[in-house]
């Protein structure tokens, strides 16, 4: 029996000193054999990324320290290893792929140069040899027409393509171990399936070990042989996939597995139409030349019909760039749009911003990013009561009562009203954003990816809260999301969008159960089963 490729023993990571010290990782141990695939899974703050970065010694030393533990890689302890040793290991024997493909490539260098840089540093290949190897690598990661793409700049590539380039860079020196830190989180579902497929194939062909870090249990099942579940800097459970998923022993693992939004029974039948949009269009002009002549339009939303009904949820699904958020913004008249819009039977599409103001309180919005959606300089009480003040509703005392009621509705303690947004967690902030919209007693609530910035268990809570509020107040939801699992849990009707047009629409059960459109089919299988679509059905990557 040989020693494992990577053995992490009782590793701890501490940031800072004295009283302010934060123990991010508190003694984790795991081992990884050659050719094996191990997933580290946990919610944000569980210490999974910090663990991965300590393997490459990429933490901000000396502020970060390892009070205990060792990381044996290829028979040598890398903890405290000198810079020379680490340079030989980084890139050369351990490759790394990061989460955000938009920022991990240097925007000023062509991709051929960036992939070639590793070869230049670590090998003695000449320019022609490097070029050949770079082309081979780019072909290997599935970038079409690689020879002609060497001079492509990163901004000319899509997110999925950039991630492929990152993987090519990481693979350039045939590393023994590839660390992938949430490599698909920033990507669309169909691209995510492709990247997962690629990673798995490369791992099999090259005999690499793969350390895969993610918050998404569904991905773990698709890619890993073994899994370590992390919580608060500790590994609470580890073992083979089948065992951990089918017979979890730790409460937290069980909680994580159970914490998937439950599909609900969609409601059908008649209900009052609250907001109706007919043939809605949002076109952005493309201007060229000296006098900025309009030469064409980007049709972000192109002829879409929507009907929002009281107490019902309309799910709008699509990949990034499909125009789903623009549709919502256009429908609420937050951006310029063409087409008929009727709120409670009254046309609002011709109104100016001032005459529109009284209608605003009936249509509210909750954004994706709970960190950006709240003014950091206002207290919880001020944020929630702002809508009342804008519309001059009620006396000061009535406003206070209403704020307290609304805070109770969204599950926040009313004694917190003097606190600032940064004192709350992501889930709590999303509740504040919901409270701000809810206090005006709107009829329509636009929810723009309200759960995608949140941890899985928090997602479930927010979905439950939204469902309860809908039942209580008969709200019509416009639920925009790329995450079909959440949409399945919320929507009664669904619109599938691509390139500004509706590909398929109808009751949720029909669209999700028996999709007719090939794009819908590909999207569903990629999102719910992480299967890559058959070649040709999804042509988004290249």
């Amino acid at each position: 029996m040989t020693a494992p490729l990577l053995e992490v023993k009782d590793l701890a990571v501490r940031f800072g000193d004295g009283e302010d010290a934060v123990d991010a990782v508190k003694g984790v141990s795991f081992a990884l054999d050659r050719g094996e695939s191990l997933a580290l899974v946990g919610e944000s703050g569980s210490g999974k990324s910090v663990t991965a970065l300590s393997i490459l010694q990429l933490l901000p030393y000396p502020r970060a320290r390892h009070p205990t533990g060792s990381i044996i890689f290829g028979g040598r302890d890398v903890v405290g290893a000198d810079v020379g040793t680490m340079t030989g290991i980084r890139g050369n024997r351990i490759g790394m792929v990061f989460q955000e493909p938009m920022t991990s490539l240097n925007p000023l260098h062509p991709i051929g140069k960036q992939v070639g840089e590793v070869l230049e540093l670590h090998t003695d290949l000449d320019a022609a040899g490097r070029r050949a190897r770079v082309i081979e690598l780019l072909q290997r990661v599935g970038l079409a027409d690689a020879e002609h793409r060497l001079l492509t700049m990163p901004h000319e590539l899509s997110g999925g393509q950039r991630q492929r380039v990152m993987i090519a860079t990481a693979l350039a020196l045939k590393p023994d171990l590839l660390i992938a830190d949430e490599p698909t989180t920033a990507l669309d579902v169909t691209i995510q399936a492709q990247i997962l497929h690629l990673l798995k194939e490369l791992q099999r062909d090259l005999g690499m070990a793969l350390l895969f870090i993610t918050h998404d249990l569904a991905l773990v099942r698709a890619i890993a042989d073994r899994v370590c579940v992390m919580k608060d800097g500790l590994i609470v459970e580890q073992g083979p996939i089948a065992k951990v998923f089918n017979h979890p022993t730790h409460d937290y693992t069980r909680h994580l597995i159970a914490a998937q939004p439950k599909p609900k029974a969609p409601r059908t039948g008649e209900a009052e139409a609250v907001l109706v949009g007919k043939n809605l269009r949002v076109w952005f002009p493309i201007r060229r030349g000296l006098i900025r002549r309009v030469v064409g339009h980007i049709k972000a939303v192109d002829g879409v019909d929507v009907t929002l009904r009281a107490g019902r949820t309309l799910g709008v699904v699509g990949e990034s760039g499909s125009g789903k958020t623009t549709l919502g913004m256009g429908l609420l008249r937050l951006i310029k749009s063409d087409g008929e819009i009727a709120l409670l039977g009254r046309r609002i599409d011709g109104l100016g911003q001032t005459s529109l103001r009284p209608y605003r309180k009936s249509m509210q919005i909750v954004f994706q990013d709970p960190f950006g959606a709240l003014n950091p300089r206002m207290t919880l009480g001020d944020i929630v009561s702002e809508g009342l003040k804008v519309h001059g509703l009620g006396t000061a005392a009535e406003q206070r009562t209403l704020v307290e009621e609304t805070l109770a509705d969204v599950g926040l303690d009313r004694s917190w009203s003097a606190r600032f947004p940064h004192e709350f967690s992501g889930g709590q902030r999303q509740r504040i954003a919901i409270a701000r919209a809810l206090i005006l007693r709107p009829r329509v609530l636009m929810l723009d990816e309200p759960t995608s910035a949140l941890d899985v268990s928090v997602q479930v809570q927010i979905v439950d809260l939204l469902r309860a509020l809908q039942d209580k107040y008969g709200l019509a939801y416009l639920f925009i999301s790329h995450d079909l699992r959440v949409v399945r849990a919320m929507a009664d009707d669904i619109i599938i969008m691509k390139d500004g047009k509706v590909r398929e629409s109808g009751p949720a059960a029909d669209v999700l159960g028996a999709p007719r459109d090939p794009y819908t089919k590909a999207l569903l299988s990629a999102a719910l089963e992480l299967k890559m679509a058959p070649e040709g059905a999804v042509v988004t990557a290249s």
Partner: protein
Amino acid sequence: MALSPLNRRRLANFKANRRGYVSTLILGALLLLSLFAEFLANDRPILVQYKGDLFVPVLRDYPETTFGGDFDTPANYRDPLVAGLINQEGRMIWPPIRFSYQTINFDLAVPAPAPPSSDNWLGTDEQGRDVLARLIYGFRLSLAFGLILAVASTLIGIVAGAVQGYFGGLTDLLFQRFIEIWSGLPQLFILIIVSSIVVPGFFTLMAVLLLFSWTALVSVVRAEFLRARNFDYVRAARALGMSDVAIMSRHVLPNALVAAVTFLPFILSGSIAALTSLDFLGLGLPPGSASLGELLRQGKDQLQAPWLGITGFVAVAGLLSLLIFVGEAVRDAFDPRKTFK
């Protein structure tokens, strides 16, 4: 007065910066003292008791005949004859420094500039005027000038930057080009031209400086507004039905305010430095005005009288340093992410 929790927090943050807090207290005390400069350094007594009646020469002019003199002109209380007349029949209460900024000490034992003595604590300048008295009046004038100029240019700069950043597009484009051309104008030459047409006074000088100083803050405020106008909470406010002006002042301005407030001490010290340097060059306030720049110029011309240069240097450097320390504390106070142990 009840403070909102936000302002309580700001006050606590402000006080937590000890150096800035102490600087504020010192600067406040100095400002307060200099506001009462007439009672500190004057060539007339604060109070005169003459034949049982009370007179307040600091506030009012009395003819010499009031005190039994010969002339109908305002009394010169430093004249030994007038002083003798008053002291025969009553008393005078003098300020600690018996010179105003224009008073010439004719009793100097040596030719002016005279070194520090028990009469002139910081010596006299080349015209025999008391340096300490001129320093007190000059400090008040500089600070007042700087404050008014800084506040005015900040206000104009914020409004201009806000409009450009929030509305963007063509408004922004035209305004930016205008500012580029405007700031290309040679400020000093315009000042020289202006001072050759009119004798620059306090407010004409300020107006000319203001013409150019307001652009300092525009780019910062504009950038903040450009950045913030697409923030989710700004869009949420738009969805709530707020008007543009309300959104700008409530949600976007506070972001820009930190930048503005961080710049304020620099603008303030810049304004004071501008006035000082104009006075130094002789292009500033009319001759005879008490000014720090004029003191520095005399210090340069009269190197054999080091008390002039040293006094001017300490005063200007101290004032500017205090302003910077205060600015740091104000910046801390407005920083929402600032945490203290």
